[in-house]
Protein backbone atom coordinates (compact mmCIF):
# COMPACT_ATOMS: atom_id res chain seq x y z
CA UNK A 1 0.00 0.00 0.00
CA UNK A 2 1.26 3.45 -0.86
CA UNK A 3 2.34 5.60 2.04
CA UNK A 4 -0.48 7.74 3.47
CA UNK A 5 0.10 11.42 2.78
CA UNK A 6 -1.57 14.67 3.70
CA UNK A 7 -1.22 18.13 2.26
CA UNK A 8 0.24 20.15 5.10
CA UNK A 9 -1.66 23.39 5.59
CA UNK A 10 0.60 25.71 7.60
CA UNK A 11 -1.56 28.82 7.97
CA UNK A 12 0.01 31.96 9.50
CA UNK A 13 0.87 31.59 13.18
CA UNK A 14 2.68 28.24 13.02
CA UNK A 15 5.14 29.12 10.21
CA UNK A 16 5.47 32.83 11.04
CA UNK A 17 5.45 32.95 14.88
CA UNK A 18 5.68 29.44 16.37
CA UNK A 19 7.79 27.52 13.82
CA UNK A 20 8.79 25.00 16.53
CA UNK A 21 5.30 23.51 16.03
CA UNK A 22 5.93 23.07 12.29
CA UNK A 23 9.28 21.47 13.03
CA UNK A 24 7.83 19.15 15.71
CA UNK A 25 4.93 18.13 13.45
CA UNK A 26 7.38 17.14 10.71
CA UNK A 27 9.33 14.96 13.15
CA UNK A 28 6.20 13.28 14.51
CA UNK A 29 4.55 12.54 11.15
CA UNK A 30 7.85 11.25 9.78
CA UNK A 31 8.23 8.91 12.76
CA UNK A 32 4.68 7.67 12.15
CA UNK A 33 5.44 7.00 8.49
CA UNK A 34 2.91 9.53 7.25
CA UNK A 35 3.84 11.94 4.46
CA UNK A 36 3.36 15.71 4.70
CA UNK A 37 3.23 17.43 1.33
CA UNK A 38 3.88 21.14 0.82
CA UNK A 39 0.86 23.20 -0.23
CA UNK A 40 2.59 25.65 -2.50
CA UNK A 41 1.04 29.10 -2.48
CA UNK A 42 -1.53 28.39 0.23
CA UNK A 43 -2.60 31.64 1.88
CA UNK A 44 -4.23 32.60 5.16
CA UNK A 45 -7.07 30.11 5.75
CA UNK A 46 -8.54 32.98 6.12
CA UNK A 47 -9.15 33.44 9.87
CA UNK A 48 -12.73 32.22 10.45
CA UNK A 49 -13.78 34.62 13.20
CA UNK A 50 -12.19 37.57 11.42
CA UNK A 51 -12.93 37.09 7.70
CA UNK A 52 -16.03 35.03 8.45
CA UNK A 53 -17.31 38.00 10.45
CA UNK A 54 -16.51 40.50 7.69
CA UNK A 55 -17.85 38.89 4.55
CA UNK A 56 -18.92 35.24 4.38
CA UNK A 57 -18.57 34.87 0.61
CA UNK A 58 -15.05 36.37 0.52
CA UNK A 59 -14.10 34.13 3.46
CA UNK A 60 -15.44 31.03 1.70
CA UNK A 61 -13.79 31.95 -1.60
CA UNK A 62 -10.30 32.39 -0.11
CA UNK A 63 -10.74 29.14 1.85
CA UNK A 64 -11.93 27.39 -1.31
CA UNK A 65 -8.87 28.61 -3.20
CA UNK A 66 -6.74 26.82 -0.57
CA UNK A 67 -8.87 23.70 -0.92
CA UNK A 68 -8.39 23.67 -4.70
CA UNK A 69 -4.60 23.38 -4.22
CA UNK A 70 -5.13 20.08 -2.41
CA UNK A 71 -7.89 18.95 -4.78
CA UNK A 72 -5.46 19.25 -7.69
CA UNK A 73 -3.09 16.80 -6.00
CA UNK A 74 -5.78 14.47 -4.70
CA UNK A 75 -4.64 14.16 -1.08
CA UNK A 76 -6.51 15.20 2.07
CA UNK A 77 -5.37 18.23 4.09
CA UNK A 78 -4.11 18.22 7.64
CA UNK A 79 -3.50 21.30 9.78
CA UNK A 80 -2.33 21.95 13.32
CA UNK A 81 -4.42 25.06 13.92
CA UNK A 82 -7.98 25.14 15.24
CA UNK A 83 -8.66 28.32 13.26
CA UNK A 84 -7.29 27.04 9.96
CA UNK A 85 -9.16 23.80 10.54
CA UNK A 86 -12.37 25.72 11.16
CA UNK A 87 -12.06 27.76 7.99
CA UNK A 88 -11.05 24.90 5.69
CA UNK A 89 -13.35 22.27 7.20
CA UNK A 90 -16.35 24.58 7.57
CA UNK A 91 -15.98 26.09 4.08
CA UNK A 92 -15.60 22.60 2.59
CA UNK A 93 -18.68 21.40 4.48
CA UNK A 94 -20.80 24.48 3.76
CA UNK A 95 -20.03 24.45 0.04
CA UNK A 96 -20.87 20.76 -0.16
CA UNK A 97 -24.29 21.46 1.43
CA UNK A 98 -25.18 24.94 0.18
CA UNK A 99 -25.45 25.18 -3.61
CA UNK A 100 -26.04 28.92 -3.52
CA UNK A 101 -22.79 29.52 -1.64
CA UNK A 102 -20.91 27.07 -3.82
CA UNK A 103 -22.10 28.78 -7.00
CA UNK A 104 -21.14 32.21 -5.65
CA UNK A 105 -17.71 30.92 -4.66
CA UNK A 106 -17.09 29.23 -7.99
CA UNK A 107 -18.11 32.36 -9.84
CA UNK A 108 -15.42 34.21 -7.88
CA UNK A 109 -12.85 31.45 -8.34
CA UNK A 110 -13.39 31.55 -12.12
CA UNK A 111 -11.57 34.90 -12.02
CA UNK A 112 -8.38 33.03 -11.13
CA UNK A 113 -9.13 29.92 -13.22
CA UNK A 114 -9.93 27.71 -10.29
CA UNK A 115 -12.98 25.64 -9.35
CA UNK A 116 -14.04 24.11 -6.05
CA UNK A 117 -14.96 20.48 -6.64
CA UNK A 118 -15.52 19.19 -3.11
CA UNK A 119 -13.32 16.15 -3.67
CA UNK A 120 -11.11 16.13 -0.58
CA UNK A 121 -11.41 15.99 3.23
CA UNK A 122 -9.80 18.21 5.85
CA UNK A 123 -8.32 16.80 9.07
CA UNK A 124 -6.98 18.50 12.15
CA UNK A 125 -3.71 16.89 13.36
CA UNK A 126 -5.74 15.65 16.36
CA UNK A 127 -8.24 14.04 14.01
CA UNK A 128 -5.59 12.62 11.73
CA UNK A 129 -3.74 11.14 14.71
CA UNK A 130 -6.86 9.68 16.32
CA UNK A 131 -8.93 8.38 13.44
CA UNK A 132 -6.44 8.06 10.56
CA UNK A 133 -3.34 6.83 12.40
CA UNK A 134 -4.64 5.51 15.72
CA UNK A 135 -3.57 5.60 19.36
CA UNK A 136 -1.92 2.16 19.19
CA UNK A 137 0.45 3.26 16.47
CA UNK A 138 1.29 6.43 18.43
CA UNK A 139 2.00 4.40 21.59
CA UNK A 140 4.52 2.28 19.66
CA UNK A 141 6.67 5.40 19.24
CA UNK A 142 6.69 6.61 22.85
CA UNK A 143 10.33 6.09 23.84
CA UNK A 144 10.50 8.80 26.51
CA UNK A 145 7.27 8.65 28.54
CA UNK A 146 6.83 11.93 30.41
CA UNK A 147 6.26 10.18 33.72
CA UNK A 148 5.39 12.45 36.61
CA UNK A 149 4.78 15.53 34.43
CA UNK A 150 1.47 17.08 35.45
CA UNK A 151 -0.34 18.13 32.29
CA UNK A 152 -3.31 20.50 32.02
CA UNK A 153 -5.18 20.61 28.72
CA UNK A 154 -6.63 23.43 26.69
CA UNK A 155 -8.49 21.77 23.78
CA UNK A 156 -9.72 25.10 22.40
CA UNK A 157 -12.91 25.48 20.43
CA UNK A 158 -12.91 25.10 16.71
CA UNK A 159 -11.70 21.59 16.08
CA UNK A 160 -14.69 20.11 17.90
CA UNK A 161 -17.33 22.86 17.79
CA UNK A 162 -20.05 23.22 16.63
CA UNK A 163 -20.44 19.60 17.70
CA UNK A 164 -23.65 18.81 15.78
CA UNK A 165 -22.00 19.81 12.52
CA UNK A 166 -18.40 18.69 13.08
CA UNK A 167 -19.39 15.41 14.80
CA UNK A 168 -15.84 14.95 16.11
CA UNK A 169 -16.20 14.76 19.88
CA UNK A 170 -18.66 15.71 22.62
CA UNK A 171 -17.58 19.29 23.24
CA UNK A 172 -19.03 19.23 26.78
CA UNK A 173 -17.13 16.05 27.71
CA UNK A 174 -14.39 15.67 25.13
CA UNK A 175 -11.96 12.74 25.36
CA UNK A 176 -10.11 12.52 22.03
CA UNK A 177 -7.57 15.28 22.64
CA UNK A 178 -6.99 13.96 26.16
CA UNK A 179 -6.51 10.39 24.89
CA UNK A 180 -3.83 11.58 22.48
CA UNK A 181 -2.03 13.69 25.07
CA UNK A 182 -2.09 10.84 27.59
CA UNK A 183 -0.15 8.58 25.24
CA UNK A 184 2.84 10.77 26.18
CA UNK A 185 2.78 9.31 29.68
CA UNK A 186 2.12 12.70 31.29
CA UNK A 187 -0.51 12.83 34.02
CA UNK A 188 -3.78 14.61 33.17
CA UNK A 189 -4.76 17.38 35.60
CA UNK A 190 -8.42 18.49 35.41
CA UNK A 191 -9.46 22.07 36.21
CA UNK A 192 -12.84 23.80 36.18
CA UNK A 193 -12.33 26.13 33.22
CA UNK A 194 -10.54 23.65 30.95
CA UNK A 195 -13.18 24.03 28.25
CA UNK A 196 -13.57 27.81 28.13
CA UNK A 197 -12.15 29.71 25.20
CA UNK A 198 -8.61 31.17 25.47
CA UNK A 199 -10.13 34.56 24.54
CA UNK A 200 -8.23 35.19 21.32
CA UNK A 201 -10.78 34.12 18.70
CA UNK A 202 -13.55 35.88 16.83
CA UNK A 203 -11.43 38.96 16.12
CA UNK A 204 -11.50 39.81 19.85
CA UNK A 205 -7.72 39.70 20.38
CA UNK A 206 -7.32 42.07 17.42
CA UNK A 207 -9.95 44.50 18.71
CA UNK A 208 -9.34 44.41 22.48
CA UNK A 209 -6.34 42.46 23.73
CA UNK A 210 -7.09 43.23 27.38
CA UNK A 211 -10.53 41.67 27.13
CA UNK A 212 -9.02 38.61 25.42
CA UNK A 213 -6.48 38.31 28.24
CA UNK A 214 -9.24 38.33 30.86
CA UNK A 215 -10.39 34.96 29.49
CA UNK A 216 -6.82 33.65 29.65
CA UNK A 217 -6.33 34.89 33.19
CA UNK A 218 -9.54 33.17 34.28
CA UNK A 219 -8.18 29.90 32.90
CA UNK A 220 -4.83 30.31 34.68
CA UNK A 221 -6.50 31.14 38.00
CA UNK A 222 -8.82 28.17 37.62
CA UNK A 223 -5.82 25.93 36.97
CA UNK A 224 -3.94 27.28 40.01
CA UNK A 225 -7.04 26.69 42.16
CA UNK A 226 -6.94 23.07 41.02
CA UNK A 227 -3.36 22.79 42.26
CA UNK A 228 -1.49 23.96 39.13
CA UNK A 229 0.31 21.93 36.50
CA UNK A 230 3.79 21.53 34.99
CA UNK A 231 2.64 22.12 31.41
CA UNK A 232 -0.42 23.23 29.46
CA UNK A 233 -1.03 21.41 26.17
CA UNK A 234 -3.14 22.76 23.30
CA UNK A 235 -3.84 21.65 19.71
CA UNK A 236 -3.86 25.24 18.37
CA UNK A 237 -1.11 27.82 17.74
CA UNK A 238 -3.44 30.78 18.25
CA UNK A 239 -4.42 29.38 21.67
CA UNK A 240 -0.71 28.69 22.24
CA UNK A 241 0.15 32.30 21.42
CA UNK A 242 -2.59 33.53 23.74
CA UNK A 243 -1.55 31.22 26.61
CA UNK A 244 2.22 31.63 26.06
CA UNK A 245 2.77 35.27 24.98
CA UNK A 246 -0.39 36.09 26.91
CA UNK A 247 1.53 35.56 30.16
CA UNK A 248 3.88 38.40 29.23
CA UNK A 249 0.93 40.59 28.20
CA UNK A 250 -1.04 39.77 31.37
CA UNK A 251 1.93 40.90 33.43
CA UNK A 252 1.78 44.24 31.61
CA UNK A 253 -1.99 44.75 31.77
CA UNK A 254 -2.90 43.19 35.12
CA UNK A 255 0.36 43.05 37.09
CA UNK A 256 -0.19 39.34 37.69
CA UNK A 257 2.64 36.95 37.01
CA UNK A 258 2.24 33.42 35.73
CA UNK A 259 4.88 30.92 34.62
CA UNK A 260 3.40 28.09 32.62
CA UNK A 261 5.19 26.19 29.87
CA UNK A 262 2.72 25.88 27.00
CA UNK A 263 3.16 23.11 24.44
CA UNK A 264 1.39 22.27 21.22
CA UNK A 265 0.33 18.61 21.13
CA UNK A 266 2.94 18.02 18.38
CA UNK A 267 5.68 19.38 20.65
CA UNK A 268 4.47 17.09 23.45
CA UNK A 269 4.55 14.08 21.13
CA UNK A 270 7.96 15.00 19.66
CA UNK A 271 9.41 15.02 23.19
CA UNK A 272 7.79 11.73 24.14
CA UNK A 273 8.90 10.20 20.83
CA UNK A 274 12.42 10.83 22.17
CA UNK A 275 13.33 13.99 20.24
CA UNK A 276 15.37 16.60 22.06
CA UNK A 277 13.73 20.01 22.60
CA UNK A 278 16.47 21.75 20.59
CA UNK A 279 15.71 19.53 17.56
CA UNK A 280 12.49 21.48 17.03
CA UNK A 281 13.25 24.59 19.04
CA UNK A 282 10.93 24.39 22.05
CA UNK A 283 12.82 27.28 23.67
CA UNK A 284 11.88 29.65 20.82
CA UNK A 285 8.33 30.21 22.12
CA UNK A 286 7.68 33.94 22.25
CA UNK A 287 7.23 33.87 26.03
CA UNK A 288 10.85 32.77 26.44
CA UNK A 289 12.15 35.21 23.81
CA UNK A 290 10.41 38.11 25.56
CA UNK A 291 11.30 37.09 29.10
CA UNK A 292 14.79 35.97 28.06
CA UNK A 293 14.36 32.71 29.92
CA UNK A 294 13.86 29.04 29.08
CA UNK A 295 11.34 26.30 29.61
CA UNK A 296 11.34 24.85 33.11
CA UNK A 297 13.44 21.81 32.17
CA UNK A 298 13.31 20.36 35.63
CA UNK A 299 9.51 20.30 35.67
CA UNK A 300 9.52 18.81 32.17
CA UNK A 301 11.95 16.16 33.37
CA UNK A 302 14.26 16.87 30.44
CA UNK A 303 17.87 17.92 30.34
CA UNK A 304 18.41 20.62 27.73
CA UNK A 305 21.64 20.95 25.84
CA UNK A 306 21.91 24.72 25.61
Amino acid at each position, binding site marked *: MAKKSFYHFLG*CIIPHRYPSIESAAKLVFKDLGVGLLDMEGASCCPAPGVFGSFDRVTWATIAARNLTIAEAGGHPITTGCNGCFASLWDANHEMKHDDELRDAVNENLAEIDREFKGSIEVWHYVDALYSQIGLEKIREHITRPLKGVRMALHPGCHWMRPKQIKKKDDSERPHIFRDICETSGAEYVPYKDELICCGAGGAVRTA*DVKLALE*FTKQKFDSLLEAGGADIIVTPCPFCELQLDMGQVEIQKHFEAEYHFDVLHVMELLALSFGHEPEEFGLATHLQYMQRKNQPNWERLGIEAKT
Partner: protein
Amino acid sequence: MYFSMNSTTSLLSVLILTSTEEKSAIIIDTPDDSFVQMIKKTGGPNIQNCYQCGTCSGSCPAGARTNYLVRGIIRKALLGLKEQCISSPELWYCTTCYTCTDRCPQDVMPTDVIKAIRNVAVAEGYMLVPHQKTALKVLEAGHAVPLDSENWQNLREKVGLERVPPNASRYPEAIEEIRKIAKKTGFDKLIEEKEEKEE
Protein backbone atom coordinates in the same frame (compact mmCIF):
# COMPACT_ATOMS: atom_id res chain seq x y z
CA MET B 1 -24.96 61.63 34.46
CA TYR B 2 -25.14 62.11 38.23
CA PHE B 3 -27.75 61.14 40.80
CA SER B 4 -27.46 62.16 44.43
CA MET B 5 -27.65 58.97 46.41
CA ASN B 6 -29.38 59.96 49.65
CA SER B 7 -31.82 57.49 51.07
CA THR B 8 -34.94 59.04 49.59
CA THR B 9 -33.72 59.28 46.03
CA SER B 10 -31.59 56.14 45.63
CA LEU B 11 -34.52 53.89 44.82
CA LEU B 12 -35.94 56.52 42.50
CA SER B 13 -32.60 56.75 40.68
CA VAL B 14 -32.66 53.07 39.98
CA LEU B 15 -36.18 53.39 38.65
CA ILE B 16 -35.21 56.26 36.38
CA LEU B 17 -32.20 54.37 35.02
CA THR B 18 -34.34 51.45 34.04
CA SER B 19 -37.45 53.27 32.88
CA THR B 20 -38.60 54.97 29.72
CA GLU B 21 -38.44 58.35 31.42
CA GLU B 22 -34.68 58.34 30.85
CA LYS B 23 -34.75 57.00 27.31
CA SER B 24 -37.94 56.64 25.36
CA ALA B 25 -39.04 53.15 24.41
CA ILE B 26 -39.00 52.05 20.82
CA ILE B 27 -42.62 51.37 19.93
CA ILE B 28 -43.02 48.47 17.57
CA ASP B 29 -46.47 47.70 16.17
CA THR B 30 -45.36 45.53 13.29
CA PRO B 31 -41.75 44.40 13.29
CA ASP B 32 -39.93 45.07 10.04
CA ASP B 33 -38.61 41.64 9.08
CA SER B 34 -36.25 42.74 6.30
CA PHE B 35 -33.27 42.59 8.73
CA VAL B 36 -34.21 39.04 9.77
CA GLN B 37 -34.39 38.02 6.11
CA MET B 38 -30.96 39.58 5.56
CA ILE B 39 -29.50 37.62 8.51
CA LYS B 40 -31.05 34.37 7.28
CA LYS B 41 -29.48 34.88 3.89
CA THR B 42 -26.08 35.86 5.29
CA GLY B 43 -25.42 32.73 7.35
CA GLY B 44 -27.89 32.76 10.29
CA PRO B 45 -30.77 30.72 8.83
CA ASN B 46 -32.22 29.55 12.16
CA ILE B 47 -32.61 32.91 13.94
CA GLN B 48 -36.41 32.61 14.04
CA ASN B 49 -36.20 29.41 16.11
CA CYS B 50 -35.25 31.51 19.15
CA TYR B 51 -37.68 31.37 22.12
CA GLN B 52 -35.50 33.57 24.35
CA CYS B 53 -34.53 31.02 27.02
CA GLY B 54 -31.15 32.70 27.52
CA THR B 55 -29.05 29.53 27.49
CA CYS B 56 -26.70 31.34 25.06
CA SER B 57 -26.00 34.26 27.38
CA GLY B 58 -25.77 31.97 30.40
CA SER B 59 -23.05 29.99 28.60
CA CYS B 60 -21.16 32.95 27.17
CA PRO B 61 -17.64 33.65 28.49
CA ALA B 62 -17.68 37.10 26.83
CA GLY B 63 -21.05 37.92 28.36
CA ALA B 64 -19.70 37.00 31.80
CA ARG B 65 -17.32 39.98 31.70
CA THR B 66 -18.87 42.53 29.28
CA ASN B 67 -22.27 43.92 28.32
CA TYR B 68 -22.38 41.52 25.37
CA LEU B 69 -25.76 39.77 25.51
CA VAL B 70 -26.40 37.24 22.75
CA ARG B 71 -30.05 36.80 23.69
CA GLY B 72 -30.64 40.57 23.62
CA ILE B 73 -29.03 41.01 20.23
CA ILE B 74 -31.09 38.17 18.77
CA ARG B 75 -34.32 39.61 20.22
CA LYS B 76 -33.49 43.06 18.86
CA ALA B 77 -32.82 41.54 15.46
CA LEU B 78 -36.15 39.69 15.54
CA LEU B 79 -37.85 43.02 16.30
CA GLY B 80 -36.17 44.53 13.26
CA LEU B 81 -33.93 46.90 15.24
CA LYS B 82 -31.17 46.73 12.68
CA GLU B 83 -29.31 49.94 13.48
CA GLN B 84 -29.14 49.10 17.20
CA CYS B 85 -27.70 45.70 16.39
CA ILE B 86 -25.10 46.64 13.81
CA SER B 87 -23.82 49.77 15.54
CA SER B 88 -23.28 48.27 18.99
CA PRO B 89 -19.59 47.85 19.90
CA GLU B 90 -20.32 44.73 21.96
CA LEU B 91 -21.26 42.87 18.79
CA TRP B 92 -17.48 42.42 18.44
CA TYR B 93 -16.91 40.86 21.88
CA CYS B 94 -17.91 37.34 20.72
CA THR B 95 -14.84 35.07 20.43
CA THR B 96 -16.89 32.59 18.33
CA CYS B 97 -16.26 29.78 20.84
CA TYR B 98 -19.57 28.17 19.81
CA THR B 99 -20.50 27.17 23.38
CA CYS B 100 -23.92 28.82 22.90
CA THR B 101 -24.38 26.97 19.62
CA ASP B 102 -23.59 23.63 21.27
CA ARG B 103 -26.05 24.30 24.12
CA CYS B 104 -28.94 26.06 22.35
CA PRO B 105 -32.08 23.90 22.74
CA GLN B 106 -33.63 25.47 19.63
CA ASP B 107 -30.73 25.03 17.19
CA VAL B 108 -30.61 28.79 16.61
CA MET B 109 -26.85 28.54 16.01
CA PRO B 110 -26.38 31.91 17.74
CA THR B 111 -22.67 32.18 16.83
CA ASP B 112 -23.57 32.06 13.15
CA VAL B 113 -26.34 34.63 13.72
CA ILE B 114 -23.80 36.98 15.37
CA LYS B 115 -21.38 36.46 12.47
CA ALA B 116 -24.18 37.20 9.99
CA ILE B 117 -25.07 40.42 11.85
CA ARG B 118 -21.36 41.35 11.76
CA ASN B 119 -21.41 40.80 7.98
CA VAL B 120 -24.32 43.26 7.69
CA ALA B 121 -22.50 45.71 9.99
CA VAL B 122 -19.35 45.59 7.84
CA ALA B 123 -21.37 45.97 4.62
CA GLU B 124 -22.87 49.15 6.09
CA GLY B 125 -19.54 50.62 7.12
CA TYR B 126 -19.24 49.51 10.74
CA MET B 127 -15.73 48.05 10.86
CA LEU B 128 -13.16 48.61 13.58
CA VAL B 129 -9.82 50.02 12.44
CA PRO B 130 -7.72 47.10 13.82
CA HIS B 131 -9.98 44.66 11.94
CA GLN B 132 -9.64 46.64 8.74
CA LYS B 133 -5.83 46.53 9.15
CA THR B 134 -5.87 42.76 9.62
CA ALA B 135 -7.97 42.36 6.49
CA LEU B 136 -5.55 44.57 4.57
CA LYS B 137 -2.62 42.37 5.63
CA VAL B 138 -4.22 39.38 3.93
CA LEU B 139 -4.53 41.38 0.70
CA GLU B 140 -0.96 42.67 1.00
CA ALA B 141 0.91 39.57 2.24
CA GLY B 142 -1.53 36.69 1.78
CA HIS B 143 -1.54 36.18 5.55
CA ALA B 144 -3.27 37.85 8.50
CA VAL B 145 -0.10 37.24 10.51
CA PRO B 146 2.61 37.81 7.91
CA LEU B 147 6.31 36.90 7.82
CA ASP B 148 7.00 40.61 8.04
CA SER B 149 10.45 40.82 9.55
CA GLU B 150 13.90 39.30 9.31
CA ASN B 151 13.50 38.12 12.92
CA TRP B 152 10.73 35.71 12.04
CA GLN B 153 12.86 34.22 9.26
CA ASN B 154 15.74 33.84 11.72
CA LEU B 155 13.40 32.10 14.14
CA ARG B 156 12.48 29.59 11.42
CA GLU B 157 16.12 28.95 10.64
CA LYS B 158 16.83 28.42 14.33
CA VAL B 159 14.31 25.55 14.50
CA GLY B 160 15.75 23.87 11.40
CA LEU B 161 13.28 25.09 8.77
CA GLU B 162 13.73 26.96 5.49
CA ARG B 163 13.68 30.72 6.07
CA VAL B 164 10.52 31.26 4.02
CA PRO B 165 7.75 28.65 4.17
CA PRO B 166 6.11 27.32 0.98
CA ASN B 167 2.94 29.36 1.54
CA ALA B 168 1.91 32.74 0.11
CA SER B 169 4.99 34.27 1.78
CA ARG B 170 7.08 32.55 -0.92
CA TYR B 171 4.69 32.88 -3.88
CA PRO B 172 3.73 36.44 -4.92
CA GLU B 173 1.36 35.00 -7.53
CA ALA B 174 -0.71 33.57 -4.66
CA ILE B 175 -1.10 37.06 -3.16
CA GLU B 176 -2.12 38.34 -6.60
CA GLU B 177 -4.88 35.70 -6.69
CA ILE B 178 -6.14 36.81 -3.26
CA ARG B 179 -6.30 40.42 -4.51
CA LYS B 180 -8.26 39.35 -7.57
CA ILE B 181 -10.75 37.52 -5.36
CA ALA B 182 -11.16 40.57 -3.10
CA LYS B 183 -11.70 42.77 -6.12
CA LYS B 184 -14.31 40.40 -7.54
CA THR B 185 -16.28 40.14 -4.27
CA GLY B 186 -15.98 43.86 -3.59
CA PHE B 187 -14.16 43.19 -0.35
CA ASP B 188 -11.33 45.57 -1.29
CA LYS B 189 -13.92 48.36 -1.59
CA LEU B 190 -15.29 47.66 1.89
CA ILE B 191 -11.85 48.31 3.31
CA GLU B 192 -11.20 51.38 1.10
CA GLU B 193 -14.45 53.07 2.09
CA LYS B 194 -13.57 52.71 5.74
CA GLU B 195 -10.18 54.33 5.13
CA GLU B 196 -11.79 57.36 3.55
CA LYS B 197 -14.21 57.71 6.47
CA GLU B 198 -11.34 57.65 8.94
CA GLU B 199 -9.61 60.60 7.28
